[in-house]
């Protein structure tokens, strides 16, 4: 079935679908019930499913994230919503020390089928404590799977995939995407975790990105195409595991790499991707790899500063031109 809806509605759709189908699925987090969710994803769900399954938690990120782990160990399929990625740092002990480690340190006895959703990214003038992009950081941790849905389809599908996964999955929903409309097809099976998607084929540059920057990358590709620069845009979808195969195949075709990452450059997922290309496809490169990342500052409040800090369509276009000039 095809329908047009927003990204937010697609996530909600997936939650409703899952909760209707499986009694063990429940949603827990700050303001997910009576308020309707910090980003209104769970609007109306309390009325539909009741307070036993749509659980408003106190401002106790560590406790309710840990409770998600315990419940998952106890046979439930919890979806833990953390309002924004910055707050997830309060739960880092549970996410890192417990969620990611349990299966391994128990010698394979205890897997944790936990789904954690959180809003990520800047662009809404929310300042330095509500605007960061730390998904690349989480991708550092073995034991976790890190998903970054860009499309309305993936906003839905990734939750479906995460709930079907036996291990902890973190989903990062970019705040600028919630209102984006798109088509949701519920008949085709979702593209698996760990598979990147080529959003646009091209022969000159491989542009690797994820989340909201796929949108900016596609805009940039459109502008560049008028100049005769043919950009291939890859939506990574999953930052852990990374789809090395799709990346390397594209690099082997275009010989030029541009990565757009809303994280900071230093120690970022873009750095990791570059390292992998270096390891696996060095002799395909015809120019130094380039990237557009967030400026190395806490995200400022003032709009012009915030916009200057974040990757923009224009900066992507400019970097693509540089890349072409270099080869």
């Amino acid at each position, binding site marked *: 079935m095809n329908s047009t809806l927003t990204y937010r509605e697609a996530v909600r759709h997936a939650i409703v679908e899952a909760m209707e189908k499986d009694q*063990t699925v429940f949603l827990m987090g700050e303001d997910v019930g009576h308020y309707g969710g910090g980003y209104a994803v769970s609007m109306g769900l309390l009325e539909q499913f009741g307070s036993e399954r749509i659980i408003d938690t*106190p401002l106790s990120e560590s406790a309710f994230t*840990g409770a998600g782990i315990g419940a998952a160990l106890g046979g439930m399929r919890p979806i833990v919503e953390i309002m924004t990625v910055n707050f997830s740092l309060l739960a880092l002990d549970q996410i890192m020390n*417990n969620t990611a480690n349990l299966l391994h340190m128990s010698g394979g006895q205890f897997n944790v089928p936990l789904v954690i959703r959180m809003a990520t990214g800047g662009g809404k003038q929310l300042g330095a404590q509500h605007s960061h992009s730390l998904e690349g950081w989480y991708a550092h941790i073995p034991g976790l*799977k890190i998903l970054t849905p860009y499309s309305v389809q993936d906003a839905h599908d990734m939750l479906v995939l995460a709930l079907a996964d036996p291990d902890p999955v973190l989903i990062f929903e970019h705040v600028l995407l919630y209102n984006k409309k798109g088509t949701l097809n519920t008949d085709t099976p979702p593209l698996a975790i760990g598979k990147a998607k080529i959003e646009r084929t091209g022969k000159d540059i491989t542009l690797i990105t994820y989340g909201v920057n796929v949108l900016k990358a596609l805009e940039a590709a459109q502008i560049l195409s008028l100049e005769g620069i043919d950009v291939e845009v890859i939506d990574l979808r999953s930052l852990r595991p990374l789809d090395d195969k799709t990346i390397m195949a594209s690099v082997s075709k275009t010989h030029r790499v541009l990565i757009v990452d809303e994280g900071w450059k230093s120690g970022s997922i873009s750095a990791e991707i570059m390292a992998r290309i270096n390891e696996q496809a060095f002799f395909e490169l015809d120019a130094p790899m380039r990237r557009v990342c967030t400026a190395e500052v806490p995200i400022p409040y003032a709009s012009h500063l915030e916009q200057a800090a974040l990757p923009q369509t224009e900066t992507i276009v400019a970097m693509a031109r540089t890349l072409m000039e270099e080869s």
Partner: protein
Amino acid sequence: MDLDLANTLYREMLLIRRFEEKCVEMYSKEKIRGFLHLYIGEEAVAVGVMHALNSEDAVFATYREHGHALARGVHPNPIMAELYGKEQGCSRGRGGSMHLFDAKTHFYGGIAIVTGGLPMAIGMALSDKMMKRNRVTVCFFGEGAVAEGEFHESLNLAALWHLPILFVCENNLYAMGTALEFTQSETNISLKAASYRITSTQIDGMNVTQVAESAQETVRQIRAGNGPVFLECLTYRFRAHSMYDAELYRQKSEVEEWKQKDPLVRLHQDWPTINIAQHEKEIAQIIDDAVEFAENGTLESVDDLEKFIYSSEVAP
């Protein structure tokens, strides 16, 4: 309480005592490495509480958990093998002393971040409640955990959600080397729990009879659907924080004083007919067997290093 029960409790405490003494020996011989936190002196708490549980109940413990694992019924062989880092260990050598796990006995570790186990225990109890399983989750932690935010977050959730959970605070007076009075404005921990509207009692953790009876009663209440209970057990560790430390933070006389309250001695005083010689003999055999089992254990292939990161094979 009868002689049979006294014999059982004595035997379990003795097993923990002798097992850990063997651990010290094996640590000295470098068979066991890493941190080794000994429970010697505190045996009455784990043994008394576990006695109140049935086989379906869930247990979360800390890095000082050899005693809890043994009292819970995890076989000494895989525990010793785990300390040896062998693949026959209860965590396949992936965990070590601080991370004993056992699915069969619902023993969830072995969580070595202070207070880290509390939120998970909350979740476990929550799942029991949501799935309408009549079982109890017991969560052990030290008095040092009280200083962490997760402690308060978790107690609040337990009370708020009316969860079937038993909090067991093993108050041995020292968080590593810092005495409780230096870190808490209110040193009566049971009062803190009570402030969350949790039924809370302070008991003598050196008296296994009292621990067992209190646990029996509280677990019965929890099963009856009366919500969480908090037991503060006053206890003492006879040995250093981890294997050896200089113990600069406490007086030798204080240690000697507490040793007068040794739970094994205490129980024997109450039940002089306990057949100590018989228990010693049998336990010596069990421990010899555990050492032999661990010695004969095999090392997991390094080829399998990256196993158990995900349930199925996933490229990084």
